[in-house]
């Protein structure tokens, strides 16, 4: 899976799950602000990544994922071989 594949798939999933148009997404935009995440529904982002990519994001890693690019990076780095 190329990075572009990941970006395309992740944007599609996020748009569908959080009901936000992809046109509002930008690589350096804040995930929390763009997707209107709070401390409770942040777990839906974690669940989405886990169920789609079998990647578990530990709580201590969450602070590393602030922007869309951070999320693409994290998935790219942790995709099962």
């Amino acid at each position, binding site marked *: 899976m190329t990075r572009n594949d990941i970006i395309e798939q992740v944007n599609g999933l996020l748009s569908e799950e*959080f*009901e936000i148009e992809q046109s509002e997404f930008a690589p350096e935009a804040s995930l929390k602000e763009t997707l*209107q995440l*709070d401390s*409770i*529904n*942040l*777990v*839906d982002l*974690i*669940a989405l990544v*886990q*169920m789609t990519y079998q990647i*578990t994001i530990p709580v201590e890693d969450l602070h590393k994922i602030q922007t869309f690019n951070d999320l693409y990076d994290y998935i790219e780095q942790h995709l099962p071989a």
Partner: protein
Amino acid sequence: MERKVVITGCGIWSCLGTTLEEVRQSLYDGRSGIQFSQERKDAGFRSALCAAVPPVDLKPYVNRNFRQFMPEEAQYAYMATRDALASARLEQDYIDQHEVGIIYGNDSVAEATMRSLDKFRQFGSTAACGSGAIFQSMNSTVTMNLACLFHLKGINLTASAACASGSHAIGLAALLIRTGMQDCVVCGGAQEANMYGVASFDGIQSFALRDEDPTRASRPFDRDRNGLVPGGGAATLILESYESAVRRGAPILAEVVAWGISGNGDHISTPNVAGPARSLELCLEQSGLQVKDIGYVNAHATSTRIGDAREAQAIAQVFGDYRVPVTSTKGQTGHEMWMAGASEIIYSMLMMKNDFIAGSLNFENPDDETACVNVVPETRAAHFDTFLSNSFGFGGTNSTLIIRNI
């Protein structure tokens, strides 16, 4: 001093319609809301019948993050409550400035619980349950969601009393208003209509066996009844003190005259006669009315052999020589369970307000045990100003309400 309790608004989401006018017409026409479900048949149900409850699309009304908290029954309850508040002319501005409460009947969250725990087990992670799972899978999901969505700041309580839940919710709300503890309470009952909520109920062989003839399967009091048909949806009533209603210039539809309660203290699923009879007697005693003042009885009768027979005997015992007209709207709706005690108040009010009694659908012949009550088989014109509604539930929980026209 005790205060008069009135009903100022109603809303419903049921297999008979999603507006009061649709439901009134369905009642009058004797239309059945029951269907055959291939999904249930394929899944292994003994009885594949259920009510056809329209799905809800909440997207135009509730944002995504809040919808995550709302299982099916809360969605039905939202739609019913939205309409009830509008019909009571309870604007958000008024609610924001007053202490409006909520007491709603609900007694299962099966599908929501199952789906979240399936994800937990499949992915081995609690996060996989999702953000809404905890709020969806508590019995109080309806009241917690609606109280937040409509900014209700009065009592916030779920009544869980099996198939009497909705009736107890109304009775409790009326009690709090009567004693002056609350001025206005949103109340009602909700019932999930998916198959998971009733799979175990089907398992104990309580459901009607007439898959080939769905609309004739639910037949309360009839000689050939062989079980209930599960239904669902939600019904909301706005209860208010008479003074509050007058002060607001609200439409005053009817009065909640009295509530009667009792427990059987007996078998978990098989009702007796004494328990239900005491509920009726207490309700009548509280009302100060005579049995002949009751123009119509909306029975609990679910179309089970023993339940209908015991209720018929309880009604006959309490009403004596007076053969009060009796029907069970469950012939049309199936058993709306946690919702039934509330929806059946609305069904009966629609009849009372429009001068008819909807015939007890599929009642063709009584048996030896149900012949003691005067079941109305066909829809007929009838004027009545006061009715009594029964709701009984597993564990022997009984609730009776008397409502008077205004």
